[in-house]
């Protein structure tokens, strides 16, 4: 249990984890001159090196100790740059590093033969470097460097195919909702992602600045040590707003409602990029930020932080519901997965939010992080598998697939395994245990509105199982689509992808099951680690929480002491039943519609009500249309009016008026300069007379 500060020993490894990918990015253009193969291996090598240094940190997680190493940075403001390797960041760093490494290996096969791969590798390395910076940074300002680096890399990679070929678009061409085009080019999608997350970032910066104004520091450790700032902020009722503003950054980055629309268009990038964005980097940055600040704010519970956790929980629940419902109606495989990511992240937010509203913080916190781990693994596998499918079929629409299990046996098996985790197939998948943990945390909390939250979570779980089965069924089962038949006619027979492509996601898919079999123990171990971590560094223990609840000065009406019903081994029976039930209902429906094909999905369009619902979901609740009308078309129309009637008419008019008046003046004066002496004398005489008359008067 040693706390290490400074550069000594293992601290160097913490720095290396995020610096190595940046070094790789810096030299990749030079290496590319030596040859394409060397360039690809270098990129993978740097990802591996970063992952290895992350692995050396694992003992920190088990011994519940931390490494805190700082260097001087901005002297006049007394700011230091530093890294903080504690159990939370070490677990996250390993997850990011190893999943990124597998995605890198996959990329060498998947992106083979593409043009401009130097740019691809540069931004991929930049991406994981930035993400590791977010994870390992010890202060908010440095974290923000990584935060924006992640955003920049995703902008560049989402728009990787910048020439905007039709085949790289997302959405069905010609599909309009509320007058807004629902299909987007890669460059459009990249800019949309950047600008929307930037909107979230402004909120995050505002929150950071508010806290900085009172505390004079950005450091996580410093903020925890001296809590005078929180007292002051609480007095002015600014603490909760600041925390919520900080959460605004996570809303943008993790594509939570209402900034969720960018994630769906971000599917224009290569599948490997989608895998990285959804599993390891971009969207997970938001969750990690919340996981990073939640214990801090919970440790300040004395100041009534419950409203903050309530906002987190409800934003998560709403997003989970919103995006899961949209996933049901979408025909594009990668988009279904994208909706599912947003929805699953909603679960994580909900769990962390509920942690702050319960009598056992560690339980909800672990559930959220457990979900993050399991989701990272199965979603990376699913995206890589979907990439293989797209590659072979040459279309992003599931309606252009069908019956693919005959052609791509391995892809089918491993995608199916990962999909079972997403659908939370009971007892043997990682996804089941993490979802169960969330259910248990929601039920076990003393939050007064936990029942509606639980019902939402339950409905989302049903929808998740349904759309997962739908996705698998539409792509791998049933008859061959007309598109595939046409392909075969032209001589392109669908075939299995190369091992370098399928092995990476096979590893992850198998891992989700392998860990899933012992998932309960895994979750318990995780909870153990986090409980120790929270107790040691934040002073959050169950006794303290109960004490606090009994103290009228610090209790809010939102949380009540609650005795939860637990089966043996600490399993909550209601939660477990709900998990089973959700899988059974959603899975059965999905099976009947899309795998057994007992019911034709066409019946939806026969009924006006179901068709209306389908259209509403397919048009993404018209949120995208509202966003474009309100934030793009509306303001631009106003700007155009200002441009036409103010800038062009008034401001330019000033110059013209000036010019005109000078010209007219000179014309008047010029008219007097006739050169005729008589005229001059006449005017002179008249002038003299006037003056004399004036003097006489």
């Amino acid at each position, binding site marked *: 249990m040693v706390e290490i500060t400074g550069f000594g020993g293992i601290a160097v490894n913490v720095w290396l984890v995020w610096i190595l990918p940046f070094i790789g990015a810096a030299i990749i253009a030079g290496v590319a001159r030596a040859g394409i193969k060397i360039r690809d291996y270098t990129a993978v090598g740097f990802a591996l090196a970063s992952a290895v240094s992350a692995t050396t940190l694992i003992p920190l997680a088990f011994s519940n100790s931390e490494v805190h190493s700082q260097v001087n940075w901005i002297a006049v403001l007394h700011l230091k740059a530093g890294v903080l390797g504690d159990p939370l960041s070490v677990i996250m760093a390993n997850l990011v590093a190893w999943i990124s490494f597998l995605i890198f290996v996959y990329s060498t096969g998947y992106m083979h033969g593409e043009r401009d791969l130097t740019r691809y590798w540069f931004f991929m390395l930049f991406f994981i470097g930035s993400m590791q910076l977010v994870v390992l940074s010890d202060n908010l300002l440095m974290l923000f460097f990584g935060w924006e680096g992640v955003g920049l890399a995703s902008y560049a990679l989402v728009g990787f195919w910048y020439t905007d070929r039709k085949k790289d678009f997302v959405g069905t061409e010609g599909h309009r909702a509320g007058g807004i085009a629902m299909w987007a080019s890669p460059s459009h999608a990249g800019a949309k992602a950047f600008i929307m997350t930037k909107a979230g970032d402004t909120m995050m910066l*505002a929150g950071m600045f508010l806290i900085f104004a009172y505390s004079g520091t950005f450091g996580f450790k410093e903020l925890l040590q001296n809590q005078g700032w929180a007292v002051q902020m609480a007095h002015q009722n600014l603490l909760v707003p600041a925390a919520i503003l900080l959460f605004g950054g996570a809303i943008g980055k993790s594509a939570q409602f209402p900034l969720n629309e960018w994630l769906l268009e971000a599917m224009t990038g290569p599948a490997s990029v989608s895998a990285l964005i959804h599993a390891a980097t971009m969207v997970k940055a938001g969750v990690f930020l919340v996981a990073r600040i939640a214990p801090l704010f919970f440790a300040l519970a004395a100041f009534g932080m419950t409203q903050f956790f309530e906002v987190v929980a409800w934003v998560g629940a709403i997003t989970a519901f919103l995006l899961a419902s949209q996933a049901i109606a979408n025909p594009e495989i990668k988009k279904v997965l994208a909706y599912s990511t947003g929805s699953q992240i909603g679960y994580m937010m909900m769990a962390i939010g509920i942690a702050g509203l319960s009598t056992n913080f560690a339980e909800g916190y672990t559930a959220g992080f457990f979900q993050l781990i399991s989701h990272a693994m199965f979603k990376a596998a699913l995206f890589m598998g979907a990439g293989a499918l797209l590659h072979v079929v040459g279309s992003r629409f599931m309606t252009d697939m069908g019956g693919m299990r005959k052609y791509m046996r391995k892809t089918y098996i491993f995608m199916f395994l990962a999909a079972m985790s997403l659908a939370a197939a009971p007892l043997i998948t990682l996804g089941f245990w993490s979802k169960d943990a969330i259910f248990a945390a929601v039920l076990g909390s003393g939050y007064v509105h936990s029942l509606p939250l639980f019902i939402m979570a339950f409905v989302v779980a049903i929808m998740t199982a349904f759309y997962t089965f739908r996705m698998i069924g539409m792509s791998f089962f049933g008859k061959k689509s007309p598109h595939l038949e046409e392909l075969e006619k032209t001589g392109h027979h669908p075939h299995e992808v190369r091992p370098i492509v399928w092995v990476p996601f096979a590893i992850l898919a198998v891992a989700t099951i392998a860990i899933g079999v012992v998932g309960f123990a895994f979750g318990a171990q995780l909870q153990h680690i986090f409980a120790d971590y929270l107790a040691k560094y934040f002073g959050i223990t169950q006794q303290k929480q109960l004490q606090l609840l009994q103290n009228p*000065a610090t209790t809010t009406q939102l949380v009540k002491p609650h005795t939860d019903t637990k089966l043996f081994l600490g399993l909550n029976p209601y939660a477990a039943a709900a998990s089973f039930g959700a899988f059974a209902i959603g899975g059965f429906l999905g099976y009947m519609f899309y795998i057994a094909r007992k019911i034709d999905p066409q019946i939806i369009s026969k009924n006006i009500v179901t068709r209306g619902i389908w259209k509403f979901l397919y048009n993404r609740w018209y949120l995208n249309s509202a966003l474009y009308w309100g934030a793009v078309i509306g303001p631009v129309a106003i700007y155009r009016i200002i441009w036409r009637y103010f800038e062009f008419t008034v401001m330019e008019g000033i110059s013209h008026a000036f010019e005109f008046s000078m010209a007219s003046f000179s014309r008047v004066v010029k008219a007097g300069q006739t050169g005729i002496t008589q005229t001059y004398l006449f005017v002179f005489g008249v002038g003299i007379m006037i003056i004399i008359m004036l003097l006489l008067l």
Partner: protein
Amino acid sequence: MAESFFLLIATFMPLLLSPVAYFLGKRAGLAAVTWFSFGVLVISTGLLFVPASMLNGGRTVYSESYPWGQFGNFGLRLDGLSLPFAIINYIWFTVLIIYSKPYMNRKIIDEARSRFGGGKSTESTSVARGPAYAADAERRNDTSGIANTESGSLTTTTIGVEEQRYVNSQLGLYFALFMVFAMGTLGMVLATNLIEFYVFFELVLLPSFFLISFFGYGSRQRTGLMFFFWTHAGSVVLLLGLLSIGFFAGGFDYSTVRAHVSQIPAQWMSIIIFAVVLGLGVKIGGFLLHSWVPSSVAGAPTPVSILLVGIATYGILRIWLDLLGGNYVQYSLYINIWGLATMIYGGAMALMQDDIRKVLAYSTISNMGYILFGLGSGSVLGVTGATLLYVTSGLGKAILFMMAGSISLQTGTTSMSKLGGLAGKMPYTAVLAMIGLLTLFGIPPTSGFMSEWILFNGVLQTGVHDANSLRIALFGFGMLTTVLSSAYLLWMYKRIFFGKIPQELVNIRDSGRYITITMAALAGLTLIIGVYPDPFLTPITTYIQGMFHNSPAVLPLPSSGGSGIAVPLAKNIMFKSGNGFSSNAVPNSAAQMERINSGGAFASH
């Protein structure tokens, strides 16, 4: 008398040697004049670094002073405030000299063609130059002439002897004027006397007027006149303000003014400050005074566009905030609002443009708005951020204008509706332009973020400290405006570099090494400042802290040791307790706080 002459030489060497540059250009041609001017500016910049390095060794001021008759002393002074302005401007001038080599050569050769080439070639300078231009060049290859070799992509073009003579004399004129421009800028920054300041201020105006009228785009003589009238009208107002200061303070030296500032009557102080801010505001291009900026900046040749707007912010800092200091706290809010209006207006108008130069011109206005926003923050942090933002936004803007120049060289147009998909054809320009872009809208690790976060922090801290909800609202709108900035810049980038490439541009290539290397130099600088801002930030902050030392109403820097600004606890900012985000668990007694910190809550260590 001064102990040494570094600043004197650095300032006046470009002026004294500008005739040499002219004749060198006329006789010996492009290469000679470029490298000569470059050498002069490199030496001058080097001479600036000598006293600058002394400043880091404990001294805060380095100055040279010479008697100047009735006006007092003619001095040149380098301190924490003038240092960033002086150094960054000379770096720009030095880099832009190199950039000018291919850029101005191409531009003047085009002029020569339209001048000597008869009726035919007038179309070659018109907007659609791309393919027509190549054909034109080929047509001329058979006529005998001097080979005019250019760096980079446009290979060798051949022009007649007559034309070459014209080109050379024009080039000489350009470089000579450019060096006078550089001298004026530096002198204005280093001046220690109000009259001296004004003289140099006008010395910036003159060469830039000629540069626009001789070498600009479009109806350049009209643009030049408009530029001259607007800025000169501003200068006159400024001069009235400066003269009144001198009259009341009994001298024009900064030191005299500073010592006798209390003698200025209060009612006159307001008028003087109004005159100074109005006069300099024209040159800054603040909202409602900006109408000359779009046409002049878009119409000037690229190196001049970069340097045309912005240096007047130094005047506001020096004359109002540093020398007079009066009424700063009362009026800062208005400057803040004015800045916000300029920010939003510039950004919104930039969104409406089709010409890259016009986008960048309005973007310049918007950036000046950011600087005014920071200057009006009423806090040390905000003013520091604004000063650093002058450096960083200038870097970003310079890179983007260089991009525009590079594109217009290669494609013959800056109209975005005629461009697209250039990223594959001009990869270096695209990458460097992206760094410039990120600098302008403040994304780390570029320097734009460093200045912006300090600036916005300052604005917010004043708002929080004064419990002024208007200021907090301004902060919020300011933050939202950064989204607008990112939107117009990213959209511009998308229209230039992404999408399908137009048919007539499929054969273009990237600009030559003179252009890419100069862009890369500035891009490198922005990344360095973005990660490690101390070399600029430390002197600026130290000086500004000292500047506001005697005005307690200006919010100082957050103190060290992990505590922030001391906010009077009685003040309640946005939410009165009992509504909104009220919390019913606020510990309000010292005893309760003690309990919390000693482990009653979760703060055990």
